């Protein structure tokens, strides 16, 4: 990806709600795969990444409310406390929407550095809730944050590619 012009100037199909829902669905499915052991510790949080992508690229479509609802779904599936993921994702979505102009100014590599603190805050929120309720912090948990940030480039490229117009003229 060249850094000569910002990504937003590229011509992309409007993000239709179906595609947004589909991307969230795929991310949730990826998160729910039966990971275990080191795979689980290093697993990037796909939902957080997709959420951050939409919050930075389409902040008027996807915001804190959707983040919160996705979080509640995750809470049920993960048997975590109600509101734990929801809180972390809401904070993440807030960061994403507030900083979306700033983030879009950078190229993908620089974006990774920009979104890492956002992910870290979201992870820290989750861990802090856990620490308050159960009294332990697992530090390996934050490794997942680093891997997630590293996944930002492939994830964005994938979503951008899917949003690019096809060569078929009738599709537009």
């Amino acid at each position, binding site marked *: 990806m060249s850094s000569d012009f910002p990504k937003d100037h590229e011509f992309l199909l409007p993000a239709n709600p179906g595609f947004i829902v589909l991307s969230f669905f795929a991310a*949730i*499915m990826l*998160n*729910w*795969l*039966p*990971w*275990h052991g080191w795979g*689980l*510790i290093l*697993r990037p949080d796909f939902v957080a990444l997709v959420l951050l992508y939409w919050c930075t690229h389409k902040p008027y479509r996807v*915001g*804190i*409310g959707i*983040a*919160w609802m996705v*979080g*509640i*779904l995750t809470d*049920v*599936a*993960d*048997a*975590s*406390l*109600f*509101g*734990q993921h*929801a*809180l972390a994702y*809401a*904070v993440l979505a*807030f960061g994403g929407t507030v900083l979306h102009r700033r983030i879009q100014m950078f190229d993908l590599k620089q974006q990774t550095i920009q979104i890492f603190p956002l992910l870290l805050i979201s992870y820290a929120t989750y861990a802090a*809730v*856990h620490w308050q*309720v*159960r009294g*332990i912090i*697992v530090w*390996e*948990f934050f490794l997942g944050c680093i891997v997630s940030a590293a996944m930002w480039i492939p994830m964005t490229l994938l979503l951008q590619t899917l949003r690019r117009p096809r060569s078929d003229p009738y599709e537009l």
Partner: protein
Amino acid sequence: MRLVFFIVLSLLLLFIDSRFKYLESTRTAISILVYPFQRLTTVPGKIWQEVGTYFETQNHLIEENIQLREQHSTDVAQLNLLQVLQAENTQLHNLVDVAQRVNYPMQMAEIAYVERDIFKRKLFVSKGAKANVQTGQVVMDDIGIVGQVTRVYPWLSEVTLITDKDHAVPVQILRNGIRAVVFGSGDINELALRYMPISSDIQPGDVLITSGIDGTYPAGLPVAKVIKIERDPAYPFARIICMPIAGVDRNKYLLIVAGTPELPPRPETKAAVADEKPKLTLKRKVQ
């Protein structure tokens, strides 16, 4: 502002969920929606396994068959012995007039998926309220206790492993009958035996079985093995590390033990307590 609203909402839910039990029905309702997708995610792994079994060589199968047959014959011999012992045991129990140990019905359940939160030691098995699973039922594999059902959904139930940080099992040392409580450590291979005096008679290699005192775990099931003991005179209690006997994270199928042991009726008055006490200890020791 919206962020503040959602943060307050989350915190409220968190508070309610961690302190009270009001949200369980909501959780169940959402879990029903989510369930088909959760099962869907386990499909790739299943296909992988199926392909693996398909390509298993015949040699391997024959070998396994022979092994199983040998195992079976030794097991049958031991089972006969066990029946004799059981009969003898029943007679002895009758002699000392204590409650008979009950045989609990069990049902097999497949592990649907393991907890995706590295903070916790939980897993989900593919039987729930529809198969009469109830919270509090004990889950074990063929050699020992794995955990306890803590939440039941219609087709799934959540099992908290004995290695979970918040989990405790009342146990007894098989060798000498000392009672203790073993706590989960959060680490999948470790349990901690806490509050045991430095002078207590525990050795590495001692096997811990359930004592049945809590009324949740049936008595006499193997739980853990002592692997390390640190006796530091600076602390009142010894630091004892145990390893769970059951393959807490290795099985595909688990057994859910239906029914909980019946406790003797609670004593009512203080005088009654004084009367009951010697009888109670006798009961536990014999069990």
